[in-house]
């Protein structure tokens, strides 16, 4: 006769597995923000003040909040069935995000919450306590303990809201002995600023604008498509009806680097970032999940650097898109791959056209010729023999002088520092300034010639 044995996971070991689910600090905080947005928060503030002996991170929102019963239910890991249907705008998935995200970054998680018409409540998960007791022991704070808590920001004046507090931070482990905690924290918050500004940019503007703050500094959206920049091109779009709404596909071509303003370019990671982040931008309920990369549908290339394909997916398709616990990765269903392929060629072609156009402009330069051999695919940059000034100089030289000079020009072209130019153009094109090089050259040559004459 068969029987069932209790093989439930050991809390002490299970918590260690949950701590290593693969979140980064920005992706973990974003998972908490997802809950705030689902709870209709208008203001989401992240606080992590420097110079504390025991640093902590607080995420405070003015959303719907939870009653004491709801809080205890939501503190359970896996409090929601991922196969249950989610309402439109619900950014949750497995009912594990808040806990797993928190455990990946901190050993102590405190949640304060207040729902309208209910008293303020608080519960604490402490990994040290779980390990010590080897049991899922959730600590519930009483009103006095809550009101005297030194990290409580959710004050009595707030009608509703939730505050998540992370203590005993694992995410601020110093990677170098030379760095102090404040330096590590400052770098982490700066990275967090960029991550939230990009991944939640659609929530930072428009009719349903929400306000995001880090240490009281308001965050501003990073538009990965640069839709407001001169030179931006909007491409084809398509809507696919599916369960729970529509999948929307829009194509974009960024302006050429030279037309981009410095600040937006820097916020998108500079010219290097623009090249690396070409590809698909997949949004789940307006929240960016996949920022760039072609997911195997196309190859990353320098010429396709400006191509972007935006895909908006409703959360009702989570099952089909295999969204993971972190909501940081997904798999494209076959039909979507087929539909997307139709769209990829258009922005990539147009991105190439923007580059090719720049190439033709260079070809028109009266000092340089660009020779492109279509048959053997060789491109070379040569000094233009048609240049009038060059012709005039050569006309005034004798035969041996002409030979030396032409040889020199040939060497000049052969030794063009292409690798260096390529590297700098990729990293920081705006730093390259060629306007005053003639004056510099004249000065240097005059100086040398003058010194040589003087010495003679």
């Amino acid at each position, binding site marked *: 006769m068969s029987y069932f044995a209790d093989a439930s996971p050991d809390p002490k070991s299970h918590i260690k597995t949950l701590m290593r689910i693969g979140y980064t600090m920005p992706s973990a905080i974003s998972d908490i923000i997802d809950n705030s947005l689902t709870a209709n928060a208008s203001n989401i503030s992240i606080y992590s003040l420097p110079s504390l002996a025991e640093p902590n991170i607080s995420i405070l929102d003015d959303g719907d909040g939870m009653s004491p019963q709801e809080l205890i239910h939501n503190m359970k890991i896996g409090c929601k069935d991922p196969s249950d249907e989610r309402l439109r705008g619900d950014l949750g998935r497995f009912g594990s995000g808040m806990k797993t995200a928190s455990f990946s970054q901190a050993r102590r998680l405190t949640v304060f919450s207040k729902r309208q018409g209910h008293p303020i409540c608080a519960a604490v998960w402490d990994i040290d306590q779980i390990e010590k007791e080897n049991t899922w022991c959730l600590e519930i704070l009483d009103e006095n303990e809550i009101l005297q808590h030194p990290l409580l920001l959710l004050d009595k004046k707030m009608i509703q809201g939730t505050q998540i507090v992370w203590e005993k931070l694992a995410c601020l482990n110093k990677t170098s002995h030379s760095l102090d905690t404040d330096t590590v924290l400052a770098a982490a918050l700066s990275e967090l600023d960029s991550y939230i500004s990009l991944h939640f940019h659609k929530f930072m503007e428009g009719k349903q604008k929400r306000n995001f703050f880090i240490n009281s500094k308001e965050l501003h959206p990073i538009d990965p498509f640069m839709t407001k920049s001169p030179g931006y091109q909007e491409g084809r779009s398509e809507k*696919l*009806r*599916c369960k729970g709404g529509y*999948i929307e596909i829009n194509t974009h071509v960024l302006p050429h680097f030279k037309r981009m303003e410095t600040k937006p370019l820097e916020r998108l990671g500079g010219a290097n970032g623009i090249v690396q982040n070409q590809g698909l931008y997949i949004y789940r309920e307006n929240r960016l999940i996949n920022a760039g990369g072609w997911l195997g549908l196309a190859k990353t290339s320098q010429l396709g650097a400006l191509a972007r394909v935006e895909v908006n997916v409703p959360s009702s398709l989570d099952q*089909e898109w295999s969204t993971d616990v972190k909501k940081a990765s997904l798999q494209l269903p076959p*039909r979507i791959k087929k539909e997307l392929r139709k769209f990829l060629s258009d922005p990539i072609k147009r991105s190439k056209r923007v580059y090719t156009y720049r190439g033709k402009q260079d070809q028109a330069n009266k000092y340089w010729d660009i020779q492109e051999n279509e048959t053997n695919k060789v491109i070379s940059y040569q000094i233009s023999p048609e240049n009038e000034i060059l012709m005039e100089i050569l006309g005034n030289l004798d035969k041996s002088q002409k030979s030396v000079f032409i040889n020199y020009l040939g060497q000049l072209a052969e030794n063009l520092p292409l690798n260096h130019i390529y590297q700098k153009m990729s990293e920081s094109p705006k730093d390259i300034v060629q306007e005053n090089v003639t004056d510099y050259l004249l000065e240097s040559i005059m100086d040398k010639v003058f010194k040589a004459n003087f010495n003679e």
Partner: protein
Amino acid sequence: MDDDLIDYAVKIAACVCGKDGVISQTEEHAIYNYVSSNYVGYSIDRFNNTLDEFFDESHQIEIYLSKITNLNLKNFIIKLCEFSAGSDGLDIRENIALDKVKIVLSEGL
């Protein structure tokens, strides 16, 4: 014509076009235009509700096909499916579904 039967016709066309869970805008427009040009008064709201219902149900195409007994409607549905599935290029999976519609509905024609 019974409104429910038109809804079944739309759901059969949706099955043929949306074999992988999505229906393109071109296919959607094709279904609506074909149905509304044949049935005066067929509204876009009714069409949208029918498609929402279709995505909420998890019936196989055979369930919808079994509801169709009217000979005229059978002919209409075959033409509707051919028109809508072909509107943005018929692929092999859609073709199998279309073949099934033709085989089942041709019986008794």
